[in-house]
């Protein structure tokens, strides 16, 4: 049991070796070169904001600022501020942003991490996936699995191969039975209405764990209920899917991209649904980002955006298994 304010035995040395720090510095140098060469503007947006994330699965750090400062949250993603820039200036923008997410700790999770986030005006999801591949080649292309061409799979096809059904036809109970048939444990606490939670566990347990370690894998066609900030589209089977992709290296999730939703009314509706879900679960309720919604109302050009975890990218490229080995001071050491 950790007592608040209790400081563990001082671990003053860094987790990363000097050569690893040189490697990560080189990756950042190459990232900058890549965006310079492809005409994207490097930007810096605030880390502190009075607005916060709406997504129930993401918990922000509250800075406990005084009343005079106003309540401020540490950003969990720079996406809202960056999209305001895209709306205003219509330019491709990128940044390397420290982001903070509470309660995400493990070998592949650190509460503070470095997100490489960028937006391309006029690009759709497929073009952005090619852009991601080009960035990977330019930054870590010598290192497996980034020395091989990526494969792209669809979320729906993967689930159908596994269960015989499209994700939207599954229920928590049918997923529970599938776990039982395969002698894997499924949490008793997942309720009938938590289909997305059950799908997340199904996908991670049986699909992601089988991804090739030899090449990157893009996953497309997420269920509409997991669209987040992506627009909806219709796939070749006539199913409604989110225009969203995830990039994996083996079973390590590296990036998440969207063909951005530009409809302000729909975005407000999604925010309201997510805030209601947060309220219901007793989660903190940061202010809704009205400035972002105003930018959408003004008009966000057609664009796609992606966030890539740079610490994890280095971890995979160096064939390390924990973020601690590639960060100067991970959570264990701060």
């Amino acid at each position, binding site marked *: 049991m950790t007592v608040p304010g209790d400081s563990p035995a001082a671990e003053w040395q860094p987790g990363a070796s000097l050569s690893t720090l040189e490697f990560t510095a080189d990756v950042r140098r190459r990232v900058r070169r890549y965006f310079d060469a492809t005409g994207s503007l490097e930007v810096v947006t605030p880390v502190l904001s009075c607005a916060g994330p709406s*997504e129930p699965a993401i918990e922000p750090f509250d800075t406990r600022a005084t009343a005079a400062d106003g309540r401020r949250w540490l950003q969990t993603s720079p996406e809202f501020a960056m999209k305001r820039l895209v709306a205003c200036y219509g330019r491709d923008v990128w940044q390397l942003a420290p982001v903070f997410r509470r309660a*995400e*700790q493990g070998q*592949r*999770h650190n509460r503070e991490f470095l997100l490489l986030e960028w937006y391309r005006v006029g690009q759709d999801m497929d073009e952005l996936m090619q852009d991601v591949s080009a960035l990977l080649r330019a930054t870590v292309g010598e290192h497996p699995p980034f020395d091989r061409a990526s494969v792209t799979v669809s979320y729906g096809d993967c689930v159908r191969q596994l269960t015989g059904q499209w994700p939207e036809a599954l229920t928590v109970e049918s997923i529970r039975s599938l776990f039982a048939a395969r002698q894997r*444990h499924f949490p008793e*606490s997942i309720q009938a209405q938590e289909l997305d939670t059950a799908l997340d*566990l199904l996908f*991670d347990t049986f699909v992601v764990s089988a991804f090739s370690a030899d090449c990157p894998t893009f996953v497309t066609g997420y269920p509409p209920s997991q669209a987040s900030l992506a627009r909806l589209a219709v796939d070749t089977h006539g199913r409604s899917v989110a225009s969203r992709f995830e990039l994996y290296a083996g079973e390590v999730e590296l990036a998440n991209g969207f063909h951005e939703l530009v409809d302000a009314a729909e975005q407000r509706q999604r925010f309201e649904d997510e805030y209601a879900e947060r309220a219901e679960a007793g989660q903190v309720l940061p202010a809704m980002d009205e400035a972002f919604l105003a930018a959408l109302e003004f008009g966000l050009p057609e664009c796609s955006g992606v966030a890539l975890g740079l610490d994890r990218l280095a971890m995979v490229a160096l064939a390390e298994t924990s973020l601690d080995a590639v960060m100067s001071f991970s959570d264990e050491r701060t």
Partner: protein
Amino acid sequence: MANYSTNEFKGGLKIMLDGDPHSIISNEFVKPGKGQAFTRTKVRNLKTGRVVERTFKSNESVESADVIDTQMQYLYSDGEHWHFMDPATFEQLQADATAMGDAKLWLMGEETCEVTLYNGEPLAVTPPNFVELAISETDPGVRGDTATGGTKPAHFETGAVVKVPLFIEEGEKIRIDTRNGEYVSRVK
């Protein structure tokens, strides 16, 4: 009884699952960037020794198990129970054959053992890694044969049977590794 949240999970933590005490062997935080977080664990049932996978939604809480490991001295067996004493308080406890498991094969008296207590009752007994026992019965030694590497069974008063080199004699004391039940050396 205290509860542990999944973010307090770590190796060695003792928790109650399905009414039995379990020990966490390993735990992994799993979370897709846009999705629900889980904690995937491997746990050992401390009653049966079985290792199983258990997955929890993050922030679920689990009841802690009142399980502690204590160092106790083995005293004697009455055939049905094995008696231990806490060297600090002189308090005595008795463990049954289930709790003893294989430990009963290696104990003659006075060995310090790790006794795992669940609700104050012995749940498992771990003998010292090495014990020294006198052979009560084995085939006659083959004099001078220290090179062929052959073995023969040696029987002990405790019921244990250990493979020993051919030159070992009945009545000799030998050192045994209790973790694999193998002969280590002669004791002079």
